[in-house]
């Protein structure tokens, strides 16, 4: 990830969908569905590290 991309990382995000999408072949069907699931699970990864820091 470039430095510029890192600085754009919002709370709740580990690997932005925009970056992941570049790694995938051409998406057909419902892209929003794939994006939503990616982001939902990515948020769990985010939660893991921040809860390690805060709660444990």
């Amino acid at each position, binding site marked *: 990830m470039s430095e510029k991309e890192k600085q754009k990382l919002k*709370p*709740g995000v580990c690997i932005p969908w925009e970056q992941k999408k570049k790694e995938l072949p051409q998406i057909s069907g419902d892209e929003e569905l794939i994006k939503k699931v990616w982001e939902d699970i990515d948020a*769990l990864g*985010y939660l893991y590290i921040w809860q390690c820091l*805060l*709660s444990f």
Partner: protein
Amino acid sequence: MAKDMEKLYAERLKRYVTAMRNEKPDRIPIRPFVAEFTAKYAGYTCQEVTHDFEKAFAAARKCAADFDWDAVVANMVYVWTGLTQAIGMKYYAVPGIDVPPNTGFQYLEPPEEKAFMKPDEYDQLTEDPTGYLFNVWLPRVSAEVTATGEPSTYRNNLSFVKGGMAMLSYFNAFGKQNELLRSECGTVSAISGILKAPFDILADKLRGYIGLTIDLFERPDKVLAACEALMPHLTHVALSGADPDKNVPVGLWMHRGCVPFVSREHFDKFYWPTLKPIIEEIWSHGHQVLFYAEGDWNAHLKSFAELPDQSIVYHVDMADIFEAHKAIGHKFCLSGGIPNFLLAYGTEEEVRDHCKKVIDGVARDGGYIMDASAIIQNDAKVENVKAMTEFTREYGVY
């Protein structure tokens, strides 16, 4: 029975929320933050409740059922060592392993030269806090996680799977625990969500207290930038765990950002400006924050008074609660002020006398919740906690 319990729950919730909004309920709510005390009462060791969260949950429910408490934290022995051992966290002394089985878990702050964050890593943290935590901090605090760039190991891979699944199962279990507190005990789960000030995060988990206080002089701009970078993330995590019904507050654990740990100027420049906007943001979403002000934060009451009315519940530990009430009692509900040493070493009469003094001094107009000054551990005498409870029930009626 179920209908009676639901009625009791509704009464207690109304009482607790009314007080937290700095109004006058039917009587003073009782909301003790009981940790290893629950183990003592329920007949478990500290090791049992720290390593087996189901026992910790059961102990909390037994206390809630037997004592007439309006609210209780679902598990105040919150560091489940099953999880911290899976991840291999180095900064805990675990009952039965590092300390005796009946001593509560301890945080271990490393010496300054072994701080988990090095003094020249502020820019890394500021540019990408999440990446820094995963790539640099976690490998340092974990005995299992390998550093980025080093060959991955079986133990490294396992620690993520085990840690992640353990965390999910633990957090999910709180849903059932809260339901059982309600249905079996008629007791409210006292808080929801977690917050710490950016400054306290740096001190507690990253630079250490000594390292950070040196940084305040040697690299203050870096410290401020790091605090500011942490703000949106801490806000996000707090809101993600906040009560969807907006009844109970987010818990803010306040540690070493006050005088005399730091100077007043440092509080004014670093601690408060990077915490206040978080509180205001959380309040704008309709959630109160419980300022669990450990130690004595009375030097900063004027700053806290800048916050919107009712936006916080202010908990008093070692500070003068009467002074706090004078300064901010018109804006915020207060809790606490019953010294833990009294609960551990005093007589029942002394406990009752002190409760009366606090109630007379700060609770007459509502906006007060009965609790000990600090988290109640297994040194508190059962009869004294009963005395605190029973006296408040009798004397604390409006």
